[in-house]
C-alpha cells in the first residue's frame, strides 16, 4: 500500500462510495473493511464457501447477490494512489504530510480546523475526474465485477469526488 494513503482514508472514501452505490451494504461496512485490511495484512480468509449449500437449519439455497463493498475497497485504494501521485506532481510536494493534507483537501476528510491548510477544498478538474472514473471502472472490471455494476461503481467514485466541490 502506498504510504501516503492510510487505511482510515481508504475506509472513509469507500464509505462514501458505498453510501452512494449500495447503501444497503452500509450496516456491514465496518466488518467488510476490517476483513479487507486483515487480509491485506496477511490474515487468512474464511475457510468456507457457503453459497449454494443447503445447510441444516438454514433457510435454503437462494440466488447469491453481488455485493459491491468487496470491490469498492480495492478500487478506492487504487483511485487514492493515483490521486496521490497526481496531486503531488501537480503541487510539487513530496513530503508525506504535505501530500496527505492535499489529499484531505480533496475530500475534506479528517481535517483539523486548527491545523488545516489554508484555502478551501481542492476540486478536481474534469479531466482528472474522467481519468479517475476510467481507472475505477477498469479496476472493477479487472476484479470481475459485471459491467453494469462496474459502471455504477465508477460513477459513484466520481460522484464522491465531485460532491466535494
Amino acid at each position: 500500500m502506498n504510504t501516503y494513503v492510510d487505511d482510515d482514508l481508504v475506509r472513509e472514501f469507500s464509505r462514501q462510495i458505498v453510501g452512494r452505490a449500495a447503501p444497503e451494504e452500509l450496516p456491514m461496512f465496518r466488518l467488510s473493511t476490517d476483513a479487507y485490511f486483515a487480509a491485506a495484512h496477511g490474515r487468512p480468509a474464511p475457510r468456507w464457501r457457503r453459497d449454494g449449500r443447503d445447510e441444516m437449519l438454514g433457510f435454503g439455497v437462494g440466488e447469491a447477490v453481488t455485493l459491491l463493498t468487496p470491490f469498492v475497497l480495492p478500487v478506492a485504494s487504487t483511485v487514492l494512489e493515483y490521486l496521490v501521485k497526481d496531486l503531488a506532481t501537480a503541487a510539487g510536494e513530496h513530503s508525506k504530510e504535505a501530500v496527505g493534507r492535499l489529499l484531505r483537501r480533496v475530500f475534506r476528510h479528517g481535517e483539523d480546523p486548527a491545523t488545516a491548510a489554508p484555502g478551501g477544498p481542492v476540486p478536481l478538474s474534469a479531466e482528472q475526474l474522467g481519468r479517475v472514473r476510467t481507472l475505477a471502472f477498469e479496476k472493477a472490471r479487472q476484479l470481475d465485477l459485471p459491467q453494469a455494476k462496474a459502471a455504477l461503481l465508477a460513477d459513484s467514485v466520481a460522484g464522491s469526488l465531485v460532491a466535494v466541490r
Partner: protein
Amino acid sequence: MDRSCAPSGRTDSEASSQPPEGSARSRLDPFALPSATTLRFILLVAAVVGASTFAFNFLYLALAPEGSGELGLYLRCQARAGQLPAGGITGGVGTAAKGFADCVAPFELAKAWWIVAGVAFLLLVAYLITWWRPAYKIWRGRLRPLTAEDASELVGYLDELVQAAGLRRAPVFLADLSARAPGGLAFGRPGRYYVLLNAGLITKFVTDRAGFRAVVMHEIAHLRNGDVTKAYLTVAIWWSFVAVALVPLAVVLIGEKVGFTAAVTWRLLVLVAFVYLTRNAVLRTREIYADVRACSIEGDHRALSEVLAQLPRPAGPAWRRLLRPHPVPALRAAAVDEPDVLFRGSFWEAAGAGLAATIAFGNLETLLWLMFGGLDALTARWLVALVFAPLAAGVAGIAAWRAIQHALVRGLPPTRATAIVGAGLGLGLLLGGPLSLPSAVTGSWGPLGGLGLSAGMVAALLLIALGALVVGWIAATARAWLPTVLDRSLRRECLVTTVAASALLSVWLGVYMLLVDLYPAMPTLTGVSRASHAVLGQVAWTEPFWLWAAVDHPVLGYLIERNVLMLGLVLAWLVPLAAWYWPRARVTAAGRAPRLGLAVAAGLAGGFGYGILVLGLRALVHRWYPEATRMRPEFALLFDHWQVALAVLIQVVTAVMVAALVTAGRGPLAVILGLVAAFVAGTIMTALLLGAIVVGGCADALSIVPGPCSWTASTSFVRLTARQVLVLGSLAALPAAFIGAATGSLLRSRAARSWPPASAPFRAAAQPASRSLLFVPLGACAAALLVLLTGSALPQASSVATQSTLPRPSPVTPLQPTPTEQTPVQPQATPAQLAPAQLDAYAKQACEAYRQMRAGAGTLGTGELQDLLITILNDALHSDNQPLQEAAAGMGKGIADSNPQEFARNARRLNSICGIVGP
C-alpha cells in the same frame, strides 16, 4: 388476518381455544399436538448408540487379550442356543431362552464393561463436538457479531424480532460476509445460540425489509422450536459414532473373512444411509415447522411466501430431494398457507421408527445379559423394549393423532391414514432384525431366516400386525378423545395415549422377541406338553393336542406368570374406555356411543353362565368317573384343565358376540368392548371356579374328591387359576374380537341391503351408557390385580398352604402330587433342613447332572463335562435351594480360576445336598 396463522401475540393454546367467531373450526393448529420429530431424533440416537455396542463388542474380540478365545466360545454357545441342556432334562422355558447368554455369561463381564466404557466415550466425544462446534464454526467462517456501533438501526430491529418471538434468551447475531445468498443459519449449543445472517440477507434490511424480517424470523423460529440442540446433538452423536466406533471397526474388519466382512459392511452402509436419510427427513419437517411458527408469530404469511417463491427450484432428479435438509420451496409455501402436510401420516416415517426400534435391539439385549446375567429372559427383553418401543410408539402415535385430527377437521375418513402408519411401523419393526449388525454374526435374517419359511412368514405377519394393532389402538383412543378436546390443546391426552401405547408395544415386542428366540427349543418344550397330554389321556378324556396346547404349554405357563402381561392386557381396553368417559364425554356427530352396557351384560352372563356349567360339569364327572379315578392327582390336573379351557372358550364366544353386535350397530370400540366383556366374564369365572371347589366340598354330588366344606385352595393355586383364566382368556379374546368385528361388518352390510335404515336391527345407542357401568370392568380389574399382585384379598386356606405353582410333568420325572382340595400340605422346611428327597424338581435335575459328571469324570471329554457343569449351574439357578446354588457357583468358579481347593470344597457341599456318599 390470514386464517392459517394465529394472530400475533397469542399463544398457540389461546389461538386454538378461541376460533374466530362465526367460523367452523376449519384451520389446523400444528402446535396443538406435539411433533414427533424430537422422538425421531432420540430414536436415531438410540439406534446409533445401540449399533455402537456391536462395534465395541467386536473391537474387544480383536484387541483384548481375552478376546482371542471368544469366537470359539461364541460359536459353541450359539450352536447350543435354544437347546435344552444335555441329558433330556426339562430345563424349562427360561433356561431355553437364556441358553446362549447363560453359556457365555461367566466369561463376558469384562467385555460388558468394555462396551459400556466405549459407549461412554462415544457420548463424551459427542458432547465435546456439540460444545466446541459453534466456536469452530465462528473461527472457520471468520464470523463477526453485529453490533450497534456497526448498524444501530439493524441491531435494534433484531432485538424487536427476538422479543416478538418470545425467546427467553436472545441469540448472538453474526454476519457472514462471504455468503452472498439472502439466507441465514441457526446454530449453537445449549445456553448459547447464534443466528448467522448472510451478507446477502443483510442488504435486504434496506432493500426488502419484509423479506429480511421473514427470513430472520424463520431462523429465530428454529430457536423457538428448540431445533438447534436436537439437530446438532444428533449430528454430533453420528460423527462420534463414525470416529470412535465405525472407523476402528472398519480397520479391524480388514483381517476378517471376506464373507463376514461383506455381511457387516453392507449392514453398516444400510445403517449409514438410514441415519442420513432419516436425519434429512426430520430436518425437512423442522423447516416447515419453522416456517409455520414464524408465520404464526407474525400473523401473516405473505412476506414469507414471497421470499419462498424467490427461492430457486432445486435442480436434479426427484430422488435427490431425499438428500436435502430443506423441502422444495413450493411445498413450504403451501404449508404456510395450509399446514396439512404436517398432519398426514407417513408410511416411511413410521417404518423408520420401527426400524430404529429393532435394528439395535439385539445389541442392547446382549449388553444387558453381559452385565446382568441373572436377569430373567423375558424381563431382559422388556427392559430393552422399554428403551426403544416408547420412542417408536411415540412417533407412530403422534402421527396417528395428527392424522385423526386432520381427518376430523377436514371431514375425511381417518382409517386409511392410520392404516398406512400402522403398516409402516410393523414393516419397520420387521426389517430391523435382519438389518442389525448382530445378524451378520448369526447369519439370521430375523423371523424369516431362523424359523423356516412357514413359521417365519407367520412371525413376520405377527410383527407387522403388532405394529398395525398398536397404531389402530392409538387411533381408536384418539377418535374417542378428539371430539371432546378439539377446542383446547391436545398435548395431555396425546401424552397419556402415547405412554399407554408405549407400555403396550414394550410388553408385546418383548414377548415377540422371546418367542422368536425360543423357537428352536419349541419342539422340546412342546414335547413337555405332549407328554403331559399323553399321560393324562390315559386317565380320562382329553381334547386333541392342538387344543390342549392352547391352554397347557410351557411357554404359556411361563408367560402367564408375568404380572406385567396382565397389566398390558388390561391397559388395552382401559385407556380407550377412559377416553370415552372423560369428564366431558360427548356423543359424536354420527350419534354413536360405546355400548358398554352390552359388554358388561355379556360379561356377566358369560361369567355366571360359566358358573352353572362348572357345577354341571362337576355333577357329570362325579357321576361318570369312579372315585378311584377321581382321586388320582392326574385327574385333578385334567379337571383343572377342563375348567380353564371352558372358561377360555366362553370368553372367546363372549368377545365374538359383543364385537359382532357392536360392529353391526356401527358402534365404536367393538374390539375393545369385546375384550371388556371377556375380562368381566373371566373375573367372575375365576371366582366361581374357586367357589365351586368349596361347593364340591359341601355337596358330595358335586365333588371331584371328597373334602371339607371350607376354603382349601392355596394362594398360589388361586393366583395360577386367575392367571390362566384371565390372561389366556384375554389373549384368546383378542383375535376372537376381531373375528367378531369382521362378522358384524358382514351382518351390517347384509342388513343394510335387506332392511330399511329406520328399522335396521343393529342400531347403536344414541346416548353413551351410564358412567356407573364403568365400575363393573374397573372393579373386575381391581379385584384381579389385587389377587395377582398381593393375594391379600384371599381368605386363608384351612390348612397351611405353601406349595407354589403346579409342577410341570415331564417325560422323565413322574407327576408330583398337586395342591388339590384335599392334599395335606407339609409345613415348609428351611432349605438347610431339606433332605435330598425334598429337593425341588430343578434341584433334583442339578443333582442328577452332578452325578453324571462324577460318574463320567474319567471317561467324558472336556466339552461334555463343560456341558454338564453348565447344566448344573442352570438348574441350580432355577431351583429354590440356595445352598445348592452357592455350591454349584463355587464349583464353577473353582474350575474357571483353576483352584482345586475351591472346587473340592464345593463338590463336598454338593455331595451333602444331593445325598451322595463318597468323595
